[in-house]
């Protein structure tokens, strides 16, 4: 797989594209300024990149929530982070500067060209060392929250804590990864992710101004693998964000009361997306169970790549041949819910032949005269009709059917004859 294998027709077509535009004026000057800032910060805080991202996200949240939030972002200057939230008005101050010792009487913040000396909260608790820095602080109704992190980790942060009125009241302990903080109309949500972005946990404060020490973990259902770009939908008063389950990113809404995650948009939708994943039925061996679980998970996630990997070259999706993925995508595009039908058929009991081959539904492996009333009821549940049964009585069951061989190989998913 090391050699480039270009498609000459496509390469020729792409060559007809206009070259990309040059950068706008000032691009390189802006980059040099950014590099200078980063270099200055790097000298005293290796984690400035993460802090910058957090601060940018935090600043964006100020715009989102409006009204009752004061958020003084420390922006990207990881070595000089302190900020004070003093009034319940919507303001965003650029990159305040200060050192970050654990106690001090006052701090100088930079607000535009003017410098203002404000009272500084006394940070107590159990900081590990003087490398603690304040990322940003916010004031929501009656509560002051200050999140703090030890800015000495390349990827993400450790020793993450909340402080209220300068006192650490919720300490997450050593947690590698990224942290975000989302004040909104129903309280405050926090989110932790690993360095690679894997979702770890979400907690919620029950109401505006509630102490962070009372934050409760919020179980998300279904739980995403990655959850990012969170913000508040102020109209519906729910969290919105981007989640990854096992497929491409989808837009989600999170009910901040129940933790229910609702998919509202997907770049790759299909009819089985978000459906409940059935448990593997009894009678499957370990290989078959693994394949069954992989198929059903991929269906629920609309994960075309995994479905592609699960279909061997010998897989039969049509008696006329053809690539299964192309056939299924074509069907889905024609409003035939081919994958939802497959998932439904995998949700009923399979039948087994003497070699252990499993086929769904059970009726597919039987002569019609041997199909029991229970099997017929199963078919009715799947949407077949008594009229269908009359034709099956003449030519046998020719509805949708799928099978997994005893070695775990997915063999076919076909209908008709």
């Amino acid at each position, binding site marked *: *797989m*090391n050699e*480039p*294998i*270009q*498609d000459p*027709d*496509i*390469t020729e*077509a*792409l*060559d*007809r*594209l*206009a*070259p*990309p*535009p040059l*950068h*706008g004026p000032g*691009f390189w000057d*802006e*980059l*040099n300024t*950014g*590099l*200078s800032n*980063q*270099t200055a910060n*790097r000298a005293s805080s290796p984690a*400035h*990149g993460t802090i910058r991202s957090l601060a940018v996200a935090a600043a964006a949240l100020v715009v*989102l929530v409006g009204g009752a939030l004061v958020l003084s972002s420390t922006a990207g200057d990881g070595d000089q982070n302190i900020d004070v939230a003093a009034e319940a008005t919507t303001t965003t101050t650029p990159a305040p500067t200060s050192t970050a010792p654990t106690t001090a009487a006052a701090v100088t913040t930079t607000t535009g060209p003017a410098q203002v000396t404000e009272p500084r909260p006394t940070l107590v608790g159990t900081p590990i060392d003087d490398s603690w820095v304040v990322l940003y602080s916010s004031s929501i109704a009656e509560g002051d929250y200050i999140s703090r992190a030890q800015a000495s980790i*390349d990827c993400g942060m450790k020793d993450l804590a909340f402080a209220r009125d300068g006192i650490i009241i919720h300490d997450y302990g050593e947690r590698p990864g990224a942290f975000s903080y989302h004040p909104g109309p129903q309280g405050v949500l926090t989110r932790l992710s690993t360095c690679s972005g894997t979702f770890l946990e979400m907690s919620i404060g029950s109401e505006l101004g509630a102490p962070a020490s009372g934050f409760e973990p919020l179980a998300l259902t279904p739980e995403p693998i990655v959850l990012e*770009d969170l*913000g508040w*939908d102020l109209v519906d008063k729910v969290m*919105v*964000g*981007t989640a990854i389950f096992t497929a*491409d990113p989808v*837009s989600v809404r999170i009910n901040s009361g129940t933790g229910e995650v609702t998919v*509202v*948009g997907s*770049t*790759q939708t299909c009819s089985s997306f978000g459906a409940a994943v059935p448990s593997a039925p009894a009678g499957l061996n370990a290989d078959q169970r693994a394949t069954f679980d992989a198929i059903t998970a991929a269906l629920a996630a609309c994960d075309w*790549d995994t479905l*592609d*990997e699960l279909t061997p070259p010998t897989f039969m999706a*049509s008696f*006329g041949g*053809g*690539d299964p993925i*192309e*056939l299924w995508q*074509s*069907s889905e595009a024609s409003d035939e819910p081919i994958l939802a039908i497959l998932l439904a058929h995998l949700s009923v009991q399979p039948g087994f032949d003497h070699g252990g081959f499993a086929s769904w539904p059970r009726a597919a492996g039987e002569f019609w005269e041997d199909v029991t009333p229970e099997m017929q009821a199963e078919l009715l549940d799947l949407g077949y009709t008594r009229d269908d049964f009359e034709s099956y009585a003449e030519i046998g069951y020719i509805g949708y059917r799928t099978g997994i061989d005893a070695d775990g190989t997915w063999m076919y998913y*076909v*209908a*008709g004859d």
Partner: protein
Amino acid sequence: MVEPESDTDLVRRARAGDHTAFTTLVREQDHKMRGLAYQLLGSRSQMDDALQDAYLKAYVGLSSFRSESAFGTWLYRIVYTTCIDHIRRRDRRREVGLHVVPDQPDVLETAEVVERHDEVRNALDSLTPDHRAALLLVDREGLSYDEVAHVMDITPGTVASRLSRARTAFKAALNPNSPTPETNR
């Protein structure tokens, strides 16, 4: 005659805080990065925003660059992930109905609007971002499957499968009247 500095030397100097070395490294790759970012994001202003972010991330993360891949491939990865982040954020802003100020068209972007009518561009725009990236990186930039796998953080097998679908969709979009495989269902 002065020999041009190797990437390795430039990386070493850039890690030590030499901006000139870093911008030299980046400028060498900039045309390719603009090619990817522009085709993924669709406008110069968004391309510039993403590349500012990406280049700063690269500078910050330079200490993690182990020279196991070429600097260009490593930078591609950062640019690709940054562009995808920008696309997600852009989509989310649309999702929640926040007011998004559109780019002000300038002379160049007016020309871009015209250019977007180009059939190739339209065909490319019809692909999902990950399929578009796979197609551009292999069929335009000549990266190997392994390199694209590194850039996109997927397996080479998945690259092959995405590329296959991207090519099929791209060709279909370019030639909408061409016959499609029949199903016998």
